[in-house]
């Protein structure tokens, strides 16, 4: 967990995480939308197709596996606007995992999971995906800290 005091501090923190190349971590952020004219599955599989010239068959299987892990396997053929916030977050997570970078930075999960008690959803999703990625960090504002501590 990384706590930031204000917006400039958060931006600086994200820049640090991205590193000099800008590609040190995979960002899951409200500023990184899904491609709207592709289905959820295509959005995820595209990474493998593009970077590893994986054939569609294989890439889509990988993507489907990741979506199944998040518990949202049924949304594969839906497009961005038909997804709920949680579903969209799951697709973004899967997409970030496909990049196979050392770190996954989750920027302001509050903004991406506004309708649910997001620390819990986030924890659940990270738990079921824990075998798929190496490390993660969550960047959020300091005033949201109590939300993470709240237990039902």
């Amino acid at each position, binding site marked *: 967990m990384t706590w930031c005091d204000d917006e400039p501090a958060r931006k600086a923190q994200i820049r640090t995480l991205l590193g000099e190349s800008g590609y040190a971590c995979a960002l899951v952020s409200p500023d990184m*939308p899904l491609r*709207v004219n592709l289905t959820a599955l295509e959005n995820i599989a595209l990474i493998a197709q*593009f970077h590893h*010239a*994986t*054939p*569609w068959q294989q890439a889509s299987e990988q993507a489907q596996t990741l979506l199944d892990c998040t518990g949202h396997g049924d949304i594969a053929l839906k497009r961005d606007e038909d997804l709920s916030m949680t579903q969209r977050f799951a697709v973004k997570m899967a997409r970030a995992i496909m990049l196979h970078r050392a770190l996954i930075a989750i920027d302001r999960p509050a903004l991406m999971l506004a309708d649910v008690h997001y620390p819990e959803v986030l924890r659940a999703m990270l738990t079921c995906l824990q075998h798929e990625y190496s490390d993660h960090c969550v960047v959020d504002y300091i005033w949201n800290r109590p939300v993470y501590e709240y237990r039902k």
Partner: protein
Amino acid sequence: MALLRFGFHLLEVALTPRTYDSATRWIITKQIYFTAVQALPVFLIYSLVISVVLIQIMVSVARDFGLSEYVPGLIVGFLLMELLPLLSVLFVALRSGAAINTEIALMHVNNEITAFEHAQIDPARYEYMPRVVGGVISVLALTGLSALSALLVAFFVIYGLDWSNLGNYTHSMAQLLPLTLVFGLIAKTVLYGLCVTLIPIKTGLEIPKRLFLVPVSVLKGMMRVFFAIVLIEVASLTFKYM
């Protein structure tokens, strides 16, 4: 100038064999489907109607004035070389050019391109080049098929249903089409295809990231496409008749 550089970059991308991974192949297929295949039946009907009407007028007017021998030259020089390419490029510009401009502008405003860049996906390779390829193939195919159908229509209008004249007709038409003219037509059509896709993409990317500027970008792009089409047409005519 910037447009030229952009076009050159896309050409570079298009000529790299690595570009053609499964995702790009699929999106090129989709682009060709949406810009060419889907448009084909409607456009063919539309160009057939125009060809029939124009050729009918040409033939009957020429008969009235005793100028029948100029009709094939007029069909080739006016309909085949000028009107049909112009109609097909206008069709593609209105149908796909406007769509491309809007989509790219929205992608740009919506940060989707930034997301692609973050994922190290080259938008030129995945988004721009397939659209340009689809547009060029579309304009080429529409022009070629409408030209061939116009020639067939001209045969029926001039000779009726008498197939015995076909050899004679194709021979005289072939004499009117030197290879330089055919290559000139192909070059012009490819240029048209480039201008109805490159200009909208470039214009869509140029605007500041403001949603209300998307319509402005589309109208700007369409104006530029129109001027480019007119410029190419005038340049080709000047080149041909100078």
